[in-house]
C-alpha cells in the first residue's frame, strides 16, 4: 500500500473520484431508498410527533421536555439508521452481480466505490440533520439550546457508529434477497431501541438500561443530552465508540469484494 496516499492526492485520482461520485449520486437518486428513509420519512415522522405535541402541550412526565423536544433526537438517529441499512441494498447487490469484481479489473480499486457511497450517505445524513432541526425548530418550535461542539460530536459519532453497523451487514449478508429481510429486522430492532415507540426516559429498568446501552439508544441519549443538557453524555459516547470498534472489526474481518 505504499504510495497510496500519493495516489489519492493526485489529480487523476481526484478526477476518478469526482466521476465516481457523480455516477453514484445519480444511481442513489434513481434508487431512492436511502433518500426516502433518510430524508422523507424522518420529515414525515417529525411532523407526526409535531402535531401530537401541539395537541398535548407541556412537558412529558418529569423530563422537562416537550414531545417535539424529546423526539427530535430520536428522529435524527432514525434517519441515520435508514441510511445505514440501505448500504447493503446497493453494495451487496453490486457485489452479487459482479460489478465490484468488474471494477477491480480496472486501475481503480473497488474500495473507492465504497468510499464514494459513504461520502454520498454522509451528505444525506448531513441534509437530514438540517431538515429535521429546521423543521423541528421553525415549524414545531422545538427548543434546541444546542452547544455546537457536543451536539456535533454526538451526531457525528452516531453516524459513524450506525454506518459501521451498515457495513457489517454488507460484509455478512451474502445476497440481496437476504439483505432485504435482514435489513428489515435490524431496522425494526434499532428503531425500538432508539425509543421511537417507548421512550427510555419513561421506562423502568432493565429496559431503560438496555436501551441506553444499545447502538441506537446510546446515539439518541448522546444527541438528546448534548441538545438539552448542554453537555457530553460520556457513557453514551463511550458506548458508541465501543460499538464502532466492534462493528469496524467485524466489517473489515469479513468484507469481500466478490
Amino acid at each position, binding site marked *: 500500500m505504499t504510495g497510496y496516499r500519493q495516489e489519492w492526492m493526485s489529480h487523476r485520482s481526484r478526477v476518478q473520484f469526482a466521476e465516481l461520485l457523480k455516477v453514484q449520486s445519480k444511481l442513489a437518486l434513481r434508487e431512492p431508498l436511502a433518500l426516502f428513509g433518510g430524508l422523507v420519512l424522518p420529515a414525515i415522522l417529525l411532523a407526526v410527533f409535531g402535531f401530537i405535541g401541539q395537541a398535548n402541550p407541556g412537558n412529558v412526565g418529569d423530563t422537562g421536555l416537550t414531545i417535539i423536544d424529546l423526539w427530535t433526537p430520536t428522529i435524527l438517529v432514525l434517519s441515520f439508521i435508514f441510511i445505514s441499512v440501505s448500504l447493503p441494498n446497493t453494495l451487496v447487490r453490486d457485489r452479487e452481480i459482479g*460489478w465490484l469484481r468488474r471494477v477491480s479489473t480496472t486501475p481503480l480499486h473497488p474500495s473507492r466505490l465504497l468510499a464514494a457511497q459513504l461520502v454520498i450517505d454522509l451528505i444525506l445524513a448531513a441534509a437530514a440533520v438540517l431538515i429535521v432541526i429546521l423543521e423541528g425548530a421553525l415549524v414545531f418550535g422545538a427548543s434546541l439550546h444546542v452547544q455546537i461542539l457536543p451536539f456535533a460530536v454526538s451526531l457525528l459519532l452516531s453516524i459513524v457508529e450506525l454506518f459501521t453497523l451498515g457495513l457489517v451487514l454488507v460484509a455478512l449478508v451474502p445476497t440481496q434477497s437476504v439483505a432485504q429481510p435482514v435489513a428489515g429486522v435490524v431496522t425494526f430492532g434499532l428503531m425500538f431501541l432508539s425509543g421511537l415507540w417507548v421512550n427510555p426516559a419513561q421506562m423502568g429498568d432493565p429496559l431503560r438500561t438496555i436501551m441506553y446501552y444499545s447502538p441506537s439508544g446510546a446515539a439518541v441519549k448522546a444527541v438528546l443530552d448534548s441538545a438539552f443538557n448542554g453537555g457530553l453524555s460520556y457513557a453514551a459516547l463511550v458506548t458508541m465508540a465501543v460499538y464502532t470498534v466492534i462493528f469496524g472489526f467485524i466489517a473489515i474481518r469479513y468484507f469481500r469484494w466478490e
Partner: protein
Amino acid sequence: MSAAAAVTVQHLVKKYGRLVAVNDVSLSIHEGEIFGIIGPNGAGKTTTVECISGLRAPDSGSISVYGLSPQKDRNAIREFVGVQLQESALPPRIKVGEAVKLFASFYSNPLDPDQLLESLGIEQIVKSSFKNLSGGQKQRVSIALALVGNPKLAVLDELTTGLDPEARREIWSLIERMRERGVTVILVTHFMDEAERLCDRLALINHGAVRALDTPEAIAAKAGGSRVRFVPSQPVDEQTLRAIPGVNEIERKERYVTVTGTGDLAGSLLNALAAIGVRVSEVEARAGNLEDAFIKLTKDDASSVGKGVQT
C-alpha cells in the same frame, strides 16, 4: 504480425482446496493475435484467464504479461489489460453512456467513449439503463468497458453465450476489428464455430491441462481427422485399408466403408485402392473439423481420471 510474446504462462497450477482447477498449464500468446482457449465446462479455462488478469493468485508457476507479473505489478497491468468477465453485470439503473464514461475515467489513456460506442454500433443506447438492454446489447456494453481503457490485451470470457445467432455474428466482427487495431485478444469459449472462425491459435484445455495448442485448422486436421465414406466395387479387407498411410479407424455399415484418418486421406485412399484394382463409388469426403477434434481429445481424457472444477 510480430511474433513477440504478449503473454507467457509457465507451469501454472491453481487449486481450490483439494480440487485442482489448473494443473501445469503452459502457453505463449503472440502480440496481436486472437488466442482462443477452449475446453469443456470446468476444464480450467476461466481460472487460467483469471490468473492472467491478476484476479487470482496462482499456487505455482509463472505468468508474464508484456513482461510484467499480474500479481506483483497489479496496478501497471490493469492499465493495459481490459477484462470482460463471465457473468458480470452492471448496476441495473446505470446508463450505458455513464458506465463507459466512468470506466474511461479510471484509465490514464482511454479511448473516446462516444467514438467507441459508435464503433460498437451502440451509440443509440447511450441513454438506456443497463437493465433495459437486450442480451446482445449488454455484451457489447461489456466489450465497450473492456476496451475503453485502450488495452493492449483484451480478455474476453464466454462472450457470446446466450446470444442469438445474429448477435453472435455481430460480436464476432467486432472482435475481428479489434485484431485489426492490433489488440491482443484472449477469447475463452466453448463454441467451436466461434473458435474456428476467430482464433489465430487455440489452446484446448481439459482437466486443467493443455491438450492441444495450434491453429484451429491444425488441431482439426491432427485430432479431428478427415473422413471418407465410399462403396467399394469388391470387399476390401481390414489389413489392406490399415496399411494405407494416414488411416486410423475403419467402420463398415451395409455397403458403406467409412475411414477416418489424417493427412490427405481421400487422395491416398483412392490411389491405394485403384492400385489394387478396387473401384469406388458414392464417395463422400469431409475435412476434419474442430468439433470432432474437441470431442476426440476430451473423450480421450474421459478414460483418465477427471478432476476439473467449474469456477
